């Protein structure tokens, strides 16, 4: 698979992110095998696939958690070197990890500002300013969030997820990677996150959305990339496919045209 074809007007614009021929291997196993994918400003690209398809491994390259073994990354059309999470953040790439990646023993604001603390003029931590900012952001994401002083280990799954989301959006990210952002959330919070995603998109942020929930992906994404065994099966416009066709790609690893009717039938049954 070469670089995904981009639809209509976007073809002329510079992609926000352009990952080319990315390869990640773990001891001989190719978790990501020659994958190319791109993302435009204000666009949501859904990344779907079964367990072990390589979705998370691919995005971890972009967030600097696990540098690629081969391939190139272009940000705004310029080659970018991302060898650790600090590099990624410098490019405005923020990630909501599936594991949330929270420091369990410190509170919400310490997590939100982890690695980017607000300091006073003399260089000490300005906890009050950080807590104040956290309260403001939380009002937007999860107005019910009250436990600002508790270590996040004692928070519920939904509250922890709120903290992870708050951390990702506070620092004016330009590129957002959301790995199962609503996995631990109830219906109300999920709706809140969906609204947030739509608002971020409207603000021109590019979003990679990883989800097991195909309906989530269909509702929010502009394009959908399907991964299968470390490769991209196809990247399609949401408008041009049905959920069944995407499901077929996820499970069989083949494009809609390549799927026989018997295979589709077994899928449905």
């Amino acid at each position, binding site marked *: 698979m070469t670089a995904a074809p981009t639809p209509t007007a976007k073809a002329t614009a510079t992609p926000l992110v352009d990952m080319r021929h990315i390869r990640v291997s773990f001891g001989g196993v190719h978790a990501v095998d020659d994958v190319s994918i791109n993302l435009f400003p204000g666009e949501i690209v859904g990344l779907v696939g079964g367990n072990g398809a390589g979705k998370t491994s691919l995005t971890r390259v972009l967030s600097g958690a696990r540098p690629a073994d081969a391939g190139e990354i272009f940000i705004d059309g310029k080659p970018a070197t991302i060898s650790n999470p600090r590099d990624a953040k410098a490019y405005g790439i923020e990630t909501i990890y599936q594991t949330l990646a929270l420091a369990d*023993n410190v509170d919400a604001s310490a997590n939100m500002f982890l690695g980017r603390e607000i300091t006073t003029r003399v260089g000490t931590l300005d906890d009050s300013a950080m807590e104040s900012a956290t309260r403001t952001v939380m009002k937007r994401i999860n107005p019910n969030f009250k436990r600002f002083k508790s270590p996040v280990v004692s928070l519920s799954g939904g509250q922890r997820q709120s903290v992870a989301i708050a951390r990702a959006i506070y620092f004016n990210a330009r590129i957002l990677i959301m790995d199962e952002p609503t996995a631990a959330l109830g219906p109300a919070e999920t709706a809140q996150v969906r609204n947030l995603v739509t608002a971020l998109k409207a603000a021109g942020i590019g979003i990679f959305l990883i989800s097991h929930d195909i309906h989530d992906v269909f509702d929010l994404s502009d394009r959908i990339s399907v991964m299968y065994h470390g490769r991209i099966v196809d990247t399609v416009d949401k408008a041009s496919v049905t959920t069944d066709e995407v499901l077929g790609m996820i499970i069989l690893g083949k494009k809609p045209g390549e799927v026989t009717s018997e295979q589709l039938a077994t899928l449905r049954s």
Partner: protein
Amino acid sequence: MTQATGVVDQPTADTRRSIRSLLASTEVDTRLLGMVVALAVIWVGFNVLSGGLFLTARNLWNLSVQSSAVGIMATGMVLIIVSRNIDLSIGSILGFVGYTMVMVQAIWIPTTLGLGFGQPYTWIVALAVGLVLGALIGGLQGWIIAYLKVPAFIVTLGGLLVWRGLVFEYQSGQTIAPVDKTFGLLGGGPTGSIGDVGSWAFGLLACVGIAATLVAGRRRRRKYGFPLRPLWAEVAIGIVGSAVVLGAVWVANSYFWPESLAAQYAQQHNITVPPGGLNIPTGIAYPVFIMIGVTLVMTFIATRLKFGRYVFAIGGNPEAAELGGINTRRTIMLTFVLMGVLAAISGAIQSARLNAGVTSLGTQNELDVIAAAVIGGTSFSGGIGTIPGAVLGAVVMQSLRSGMILLRVDSPIQDIVVGVVLVGAVGLDTVIRRRSSR
């Protein structure tokens, strides 16, 4: 968990609940409070058993000096253990660095460089050499641990052997003496203390400091509209804190110079000794001052600086800390640099106290220090621990040892008791923690 008080309590009895809410509104660390209570029990217990020998100015003063060497290092060990590492080499680093500092002042400056004894700069040079050496050794070990990813247990176990072995390379194991006069003051003793006026001045200054901290904290909270502590709680904390400080100063000043030393002093200064004997208040010893200073600085580092926050974040979840953008390797290496510096400070105090460089200096100190940190609430599973807790842990350890010496308990039995207390205290703490996190 300190913040858990408000969350876990089951309304069993009204009184228990009201005490808890009372405590909660003062926002005092309940673990630390528990340790203070335990310490009080130990002190009173030993005092009763020894027939009033424990709670004397003389014994408490000695206790403060003995605790300082271990307490200073325990503050660094907290950061090491919190970030899920361990340092077994500090006793040997202390020995090597301490011996080196004595070499500087007893041999290198006076003989090798031919500058003679008693130079005014000798003690500063010796101390500086020690601190730099401690930082370098800690940095080397920390670099191997953080960047080469060799387990801290192995690296510092190697360090324990290497640095102790190196001590013998200097003078083939001889004891060297004496230390410089000014350097010797670091070890404490009647002359190595600041006297009554200085101690009172320090005590009053500390009280002002406590009040200023409380006021500043309240002002900051108000500025951001955060909930305030009730005023009575602020006042109570201020009063209790000041009382403890002034009480400690009073005890230190109630310990007088030994008679012979006082008589010698009187002779030198042409003072006639009054009928009851000349009572010269000793005041707070320099090593205790150093310990207080180190505790304040380390608490500041641990709670007010990014570095401290990173140490705790790494301990809570190393992967998350890395993903959060923290330079985890550099942070880990720095904890070992700090530990090396603290071992050097402690080495200076201990060799000054002995007035000599000996090869056995600091042997098994790593065990006392680790025990102090752990008794003080530092958790081996990482991310949890406080500096004041560790210092208090050092005082608890030293109180047990010193109390048993007063009771003439044999040294092997002492070890058994300390061992049992260590495991018992940590076991109890683990059980309580598990219960409160449910």
